[in-house]
């Protein structure tokens, strides 16, 4: 046991002391904070700057309601023909020309939008939405509803999604926030398992090519050496993960309090709401209620303690599961270039789990595919952390964890039997058949 500790210590320290580790660990949170800041900045700036002025040319007699200017789109009805406006568009301060031809309310057709630049999808949607609302209002009025009643009808509904937890307590949740967390967790899990699994493989190959392996295993059992390496590198991964979380939080907090004053943060939140009120820029009247605030609110509603601890469990489990296989691969080859044929079958389930988790599972976190992906140990580490923010029944979580534990004990056992023979084999091209033979060797 003492020897395993010595090996863990060496594997850990030799990696943590490396320049590349230190740079990666400290640079990544800075990058993340930087990207986060940039996104925030551009969101704010982008929303503020989106202001299109549109000339409306209407030959429509049926539609008597007029398009109303809001904070992003300014409509101005002009009394010119379409051709004239189109010709003078370059010189005028209009960005687009909207043409409303005569149509029946039942079948609104022929609406056109002209501009110097192609109108974006969001502008397109917004204008068509405005026109649809116009038509609906007019239809309602024709059926005898007074303007006053119509104004009263206009309410903005903001759905607050709540999930009833096992305890009966209501938790705020938001599909948006859950999806963001699920994506981040899934990508992180995939990255960690791959990067650190491959580090185990490299470590084994390094011992083989530098020929220290025989000196080592005259002192320790191959199993001890393999486990020492796997655990040592796992600790490196955990160190990096924890440092990333701590550093990212610290940097974001510090950056937020230094570079951005409180009023600005509020402004970003309000202007991001996409509501109907024009923000004057200096005074904010409305209480912040936009989707951004929504996400912030439900982020606070997620149980981060649980997510992080389950993440760590599945990272360790999934990492042990895969790194044992990587160790076996490393033991079977003489150099990294020979690893390709063995990497494929190990990479495939991981990649598949990653791809399916981020598509199928995020769309339907309670479906059959999600369930099975989060049970099979080849994919469960990724699938489970992706499902987690949406809420997973306790028994499923427990079952998945148990299967993963059995799974990694299995792969470690299989890998150690291949490893103990493989590390002493040189100069031969190893095949799967040969690896199976090694597996069946007695001591």
């Amino acid at each position, binding site marked *: 046991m003492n*020897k395993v500790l*010595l090996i863990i210590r060496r594997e850990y320290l*030799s990696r943590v002391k490396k320049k590349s580790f230190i740079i990666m660990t400290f640079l990544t949170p800075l990058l993340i904070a930087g990207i986060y800041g940039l996104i925030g900045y551009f969101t704010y700036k982008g929303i503020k700057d989106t202001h299109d002025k549109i000339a409306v040319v209407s030959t429509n007699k049926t539609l008597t309601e007029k398009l109303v200017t809001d904070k992003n789109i300014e409509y101005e009805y002009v009394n010119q023909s379409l051709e004239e406006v189109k010709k003078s568009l370059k010189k005028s301060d209009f960005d687009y020309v909207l043409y409303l031809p005569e149509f029946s309310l039942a079948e609104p057709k022929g609406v056109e939008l002209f501009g110097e630049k192609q109108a974006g999808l969001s502008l397109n949607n917004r204008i068509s939405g405005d026109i649809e609302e116009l038509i609906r209002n007019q239809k309602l009025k024709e059926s005898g509803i007074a303007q006053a009643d119509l104004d009263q009808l206009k309410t903005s509904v903001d759905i607050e999604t709540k999930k009833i937890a096992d305890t009966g307590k209501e938790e705020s949740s938001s599909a948006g926030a859950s999806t963001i967390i699920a994506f981040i967790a899934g990508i992180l899990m995939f990255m960690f398992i791959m990067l650190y699994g491959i580090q185990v493989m490299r470590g084994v190959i*390094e011992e083989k090519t530098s*020929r220290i*392996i025989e*000196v080592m295993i*005259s002192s320790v059992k191959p199993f001890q050496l393999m486990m020492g390496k796997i655990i040592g590198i796992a600790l490196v991964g955990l160190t990096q993960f924890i440092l990333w979380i701590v550093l990212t939080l610290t940097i974001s907090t510090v950056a937020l309090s230094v570079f951005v004053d409180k009023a600005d943060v509020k402004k970003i939140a309000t202007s991001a709401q996409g509501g109907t009120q024009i923000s004057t820029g200096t005074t904010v009247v409305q209480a912040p209620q936009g989707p951004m605030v929504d996400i912030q609110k439900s982020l606070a509603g997620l149980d981060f303690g649980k997510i992080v601890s389950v993440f760590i469990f599945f990272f360790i489990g999934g990492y042990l599961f895969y790194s044992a296989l990587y160790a076996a691969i490393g033991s079977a080859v003489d150099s990294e270039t020979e690893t390709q044929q063995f990497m494929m079958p190990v990479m495939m389930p991981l990649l598949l789990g990653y791809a399916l988790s981020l598509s199928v599972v995020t769309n339907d976190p309670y479906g059959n595919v999600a369930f099975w992906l989060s049970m099979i140990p080849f994919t469960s580490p990724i699938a489970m952390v992706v499902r987690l923010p949406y809420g997973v029944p306790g028994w499923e979580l427990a079952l998945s964890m148990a299967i993963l534990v059995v799974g990694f004990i299995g792969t470690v056992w299989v890998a150690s039997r291949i490893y103990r023979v493989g590390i002493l084999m040189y100069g031969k091209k190893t095949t799967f058949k040969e690896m199976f033979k090694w597996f069946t060797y*007695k*001591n």
Partner: protein
Amino acid sequence: MLSVKNIVKQYATHRALDQVSLEVESGKIFGLLGPNGAGKTSLIRIITQITAPDSGEVLFNGERLNANHISQIGYLPEERGLYKKMEIGEQVLYLSKLKGLSTAEATKRIKFWFEKLEMGSWWNKKVEDLSKGMQQKVQFVATILHQPELIILDEPFSGFDPVNADIIKNEILELNRQGATFIFSTHRMESVEELCDHIALIDRSKKILDGSVDEIKGTYRNNTYWIEYEGDYNTESAKDIFDVLQTENIKGKTLLKIQLQKDKTANEVLATLLPYVAIHRLDEVIPTMNDIFIDKVKRQDYE
């Protein structure tokens, strides 16, 4: 101190060791010889507990080999290496702690040996900055640092320059005087001949020769001599004393390789020749271990 008894090791298609038995006496230097692929490394891997035999057993000081013996054996494999990116001092410290030494004791001994072998300034160097010969010295120190009773060296002198080989040879002899038992494994007999007390020859997974160096050489002596003289002598007249195997004439001198007839001695040869010629030298032809080795292995081929 080490008894190897009827060891059999079978790999999938070939038998690496077939009923091999050996006795290594305490305080001796034992040579384990054989051509490449004969099974030497397989046997050493069993003694160092890297693998286990299919049948047979190994006794260490009368006890069946077990995990406690790992700290009493030092092993320098033929394929030896070090962690390239690790500092020398730290590396030797790590290897000796794995053998059970405490940090303090290991540090003390490393300093002692580094001083002794003129490696004092190497502590913080990385392996990749050392020459191959320097690396070998480090590996040697790592092998013997935990003061094992049994030290196994696989091809000990390959890779050493003559000066360092000599330094290492002297250290081996000194450790041997202090009581350490050695096993040398090699296919280059001449490199260890002068050091070994006892040898065993393994060829194609079987032991084919075993005995003390003197004994073996004794049995391979066949009363053959080189004799060199100046003058004329008709060797036909000495036919009942020796046969001439080979004749060479160099600058007026004659060099003969002769084999004595049964019950004759070198003295009688001299007595016969002395009246006629001026004798320059007379040497007994003693086969080197290398000759015996080649002869034995070839004979196996022939059979």
